[in-house]
C-alpha cells in the first residue's frame, strides 16, 4: 500500500467547494498508467467479443472491481483515490461506482445528477492525453450550485449528444462555444468534480478512455435518506440504461482477502443500503 500523505490543502478544498471541481496533476506514474491501459485493453477485448458489432453504442463501460483488472480494482484502496475523496465528502463516504469507460463520440453538456439531496463526487482519470479539440473534459465552474445549475437546465443546455440540446439547436452555437474550464490532461492527472457540476467533452474519438471512481456522502438528513433509498431502488435500471457490463461489486472484491478495514466499512454500508443486492436485480 502507498503510505504517502495525499491530503488536500485547505485552499484545494475551498477551490473544490467554490468551483465544483479540482485538478491534481501527476497523481499516477507512467508505469502505473501503462498497467491500467494493459488491463483496460484485455478487459475491453473480452467484452467486445460478446457485443454485436452492428450495435451502435454510445460508450462501453464496465466495473473495475473484478479479478480480470486487479490493478485498477486496487485503486479504490489507494489513498490517492480515497483520501481526498473522504476529505471532500466525509470520512464515512463510500465508493459506489468504480468504472472503466470507453467512449465512441462526444459527450454533450450535462450534470450527472440534479437532485441536491444526494451528494456524490466523481474522480476521473483519462488514460490517453487530452486536449480541447481531442476529448478533454470541460466543466462549467460553480455549476454545481444554484442558481447557475438550474439556469443551465432552464435554458435547455442539457443533451448527452450535442443535437439533443435545445439551447444549442436554437442558438446555433456548438457545445464547444459554452464557456468553461477545459481540463487538458496527461494520463496520471485526475479531476474530481461534484456530480452536480455540468460537464462535457468534445473532439471525441473511438475508444476514448477514462477510469472513474465515484464516492457518495453518507446521508444523514431525512431528505437525503429518502433520496438514497430511491437511488438504490433505481440502481439496477440505471445500470441497464448505462449498458454497464458485469457486476459492480464482484464477489472477489467483497471477500476482501487482505481485510482492509476501510473496504470492510464500505461493504457493510453497501449491504445496509441494499446496493449489493440491487446489482442482481
Amino acid at each position, binding site marked *: 500500500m502507498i503510505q504517502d500523505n495525499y491530503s488536500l490543502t485547505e485552499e484545494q478544498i*475551498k477551490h473544490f467547494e*467554490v*468551483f465544483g471541481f479540482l485538478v491534481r496533476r501527476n497523481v499516477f506514474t507512467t508505469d502505473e498508467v501503462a498497467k491500467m491501459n494493459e488491463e483496460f485493453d484485455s478487459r475491453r477485448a473480452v467484452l467486445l467479443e460478446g457485443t454485436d458489432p452492428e450495435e451502435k453504442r454510445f460508450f462501453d463501460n464496465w466495473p473495475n472491481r473484478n479479478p480480470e483488472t486487479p490493478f485498477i480494482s486496487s485503486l479504490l484502496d489507494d489513498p490517492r483515490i480515497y483520501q481526498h475523496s473522504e476529505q471532500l465528502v466525509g470520512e464515512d463516504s463510500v465508493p459506489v461506482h468504480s468504472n472503466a469507460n470507453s467512449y465512441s463520440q462526444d459527450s454533450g453538456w450535462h450534470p450527472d445528477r440534479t437532485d441536491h439531496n444526494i451528494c456524490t463526487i466523481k474522480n476521473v482519470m483519462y488514460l490517453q492525453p487530452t486536449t480541447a479539440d481531442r476529448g478533454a473534459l470541460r*466543466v462549467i465552474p460553480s455549476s454545481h450550485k444554484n442558481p*447557475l445549475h438550474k*439556469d443551465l437546465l432552464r*435554458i435547455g443546455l442539457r443533451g448527452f449528444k450535442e443535437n439533443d440540446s435545445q*439551447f444549442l439547436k436554437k442558438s446555433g452555437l456548438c457545445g464547444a462555444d459554452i*464557456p*468553461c474550464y477545459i481540463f487538458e490532461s496527461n494520463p496520471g492527472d485526475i479531476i474530481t468534480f461534484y456530480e452536480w457540476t455540468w460537464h462535457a467533452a468534445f473532439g471525441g474519438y473511438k475508444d476514448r478512455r477514462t477510469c472513474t471512481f465515484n464516492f457518495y456522502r453518507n446521508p444523514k438528513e431525512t431528505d437525503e435518506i429518502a433520496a438514497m433509498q430511491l437511488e438504490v431502488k433505481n440502481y439496477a435500471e440505471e445500470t441497464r440504461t448505462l449498458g454497464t457490463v458485469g457486476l459492480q461489486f464482484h464477489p472477489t472484491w467483497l471477500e476482501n482477502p487482505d481485510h482492509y478495514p476501510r473496504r470492510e466499512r464500505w461493504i457493510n454500508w453497501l449491504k445496509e443500503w441494499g446496493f449489493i443486492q440491487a446489482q442482481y436485480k
Partner: protein
Amino acid sequence: MITEQQVYFFKTFGFLVLKNVLTPAEIKNINKEFLVGLAKMDETKMGTSVRKQYNWTNLGPDSPFTSSLLEDERFYGIAQQILGDDCVGVDSHANQYNGNRSPWHPDIRELGPDQFTGFKFTFYLGPVDGNSGALRVVPGSHCPGFSAEVEKVFLKDNNPGPDDDPGLAVNEVPAHICISEPGDAVIFDYFVWHSSWGGSKDRRMVSLQYYKNPKTPEEKEGMRKMVAFRKNFNKGFKRETKLYPDFWLANPNNNVVRTQWIEQLQKWGFIDAVNA
C-alpha cells in the same frame, strides 16, 4: 440586435462575445482617434497598478467617431434589449494597458444586483488570446452567491494567502478566455469577475458603458450610491479632461438620444459628481 438565446447566454453567464461588430475601416478610424488621445498621455498619467494603464474619455472632440458609437444602434440597441428602452449610455473610455496582466475583480462590489444593473461593451483594437491579454471571465460569477464565494479564494495579486500558499495566479483561476479579433466585442455585466493574462505593451481597448434606468426604491437608492462611488472612483485615475467634456454635453448634432441621456445623467447627479 441579439437573439433570445444570446440574451439567455448573457443573463446566465454574465457575458457575451459578439463577432465582427465593427468593420476593419471603423477599427482603423478608432485607432486613429485613439492615437490622438494617447499622444496626450505621459508617464505621470499612467495608473500605478500592475495594469500600467492609461485611461481617457472618448467623449471629447478628439474622437468624434468613437464617441458616436455610444449612440450607435449596434450597441445602444443591444443595451435597450437587455436593460430596457430607457437605459442610459453613461461612458466611453479608451484604455491602453502596458502591464502583463489585470488581476481578477468585478467592476462593482459596492452594490447588489437588486440595486443596480448595467454592463459594458469592450473591444480590443488588436488580436488577443489567452496568452496575450484577452479578457478572461468566470462565467456565472455575476450572481451574488457565486461572487461572494470567489471573494474567499486566495488570489496571488490582490487577495493573497499565507506565504506558503499565496493563492492562484491570474491564469490559474478557472475561466473562459474571450479570444478576440479587431471588430469583435464582448459585453459583460459589471458584477462578473474578469481579468487578463499575458498582455504586453500597447494593448488597446475601448469600452462603452450602459446603465439601467432605476425604477424601484432599491434601484434609486443604488443609483445614489453609484453616483457617490463613481465620484471617488474617478479620483483614482489621473485624467486631465472631464469625463463629460463640454463638447459632448453641448451635443452639437442635437442627437435626440444623447439629449435624453444628458437629462437623465443630470437628474441622477452623475455629471456634477464625476466632473467635479
